């Protein structure tokens, strides 16, 4: 079957998309990721799309779904390396991926996830502190 490999890195999952996406492949990735997050109790998902030259409404929606579903299971999703032309095109298409965190590259994305994880841990020990949503898009 057509599948994109998912790499487990400690509490996080890393997906590097290297091929031209089509709908079936995107749907399989969504399913596989959600199962993996649940099975491993992952705290974050990094999706590296630096090699992806086309994100249309279907793929954009899948990325949004992954982020929403992961959040329900207490995991953050970060989309990494979106090409400028792709970002501009998504806005013009009418799907600006607003609910999704982004980072320039995998290192920065990983650092962002680690920071979020650390923040969560201190918060948990600080008895009932409010969840603060420090959005660091871009």
């Amino acid at each position: 079957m057509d599948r994109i490999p998912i790499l487990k890195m400690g509490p996080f999952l890393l997906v590097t998309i290297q091929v031209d996406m089509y709908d079936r492949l995107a749907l399989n990735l969504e399913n596989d990721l959600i199962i993996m997050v649940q099975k491993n109790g992952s705290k974050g998902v990094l999706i590296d799309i630096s090699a992806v030259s086309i994100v249309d409404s279907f793929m954009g929606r899948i990325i949004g779904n992954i982020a929403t579903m992961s959040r329900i299971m207490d995991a953050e999703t970060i989309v990494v390396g979106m090409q400028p032309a792709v970002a501009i095109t998504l806005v013009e298409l009418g799907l600006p991926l607003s609910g999704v965190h982004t980072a320039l590259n995998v290192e920065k994305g990983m650092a962002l996830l680690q920071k979020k994880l650390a923040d969560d841990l201190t918060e948990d020990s600080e008895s009932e502190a409010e969840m603060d949503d420090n959005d660091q898009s871009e």
Partner: protein
Amino acid sequence: MISLNKETIKISSEKDVVLFRQRLREYATKIGMSVLNQTKLITAASELVRNILVYAGSGETTIEVVSERLQTGIKVIFKDNGPGIADVNKAMQDGYSSGRSLGLGLPGAKRLVNFFEIKSTVGHGTTVTIIRWKK
């Protein structure tokens, strides 16, 4: 408008969609279209070719290098013999979907190209024509 080069690709599965997008990129690269315009063209085309698969089941696309005055660009025609669209104006509105989708495909594709034309007859099918100039 002068047609310089032309190719028709039948669409009946996602495999065809992948091939179609590859060919479209090859044409756009060959005429020296900027990366941004290529991305807009292929993204728009991706929406329209999905509509063929979802609503008509199958159809065909024609990729054409066209030239008019001092401009060169790519024209793509998406043709199907599916159910057609009863109210094209409604279908062109942002957020209108007969299914449970976002209704972004048609209006979004229109925003991404320089020329957009849709002709549809209920019971006969739909033809969408787009042009993106190389600029």
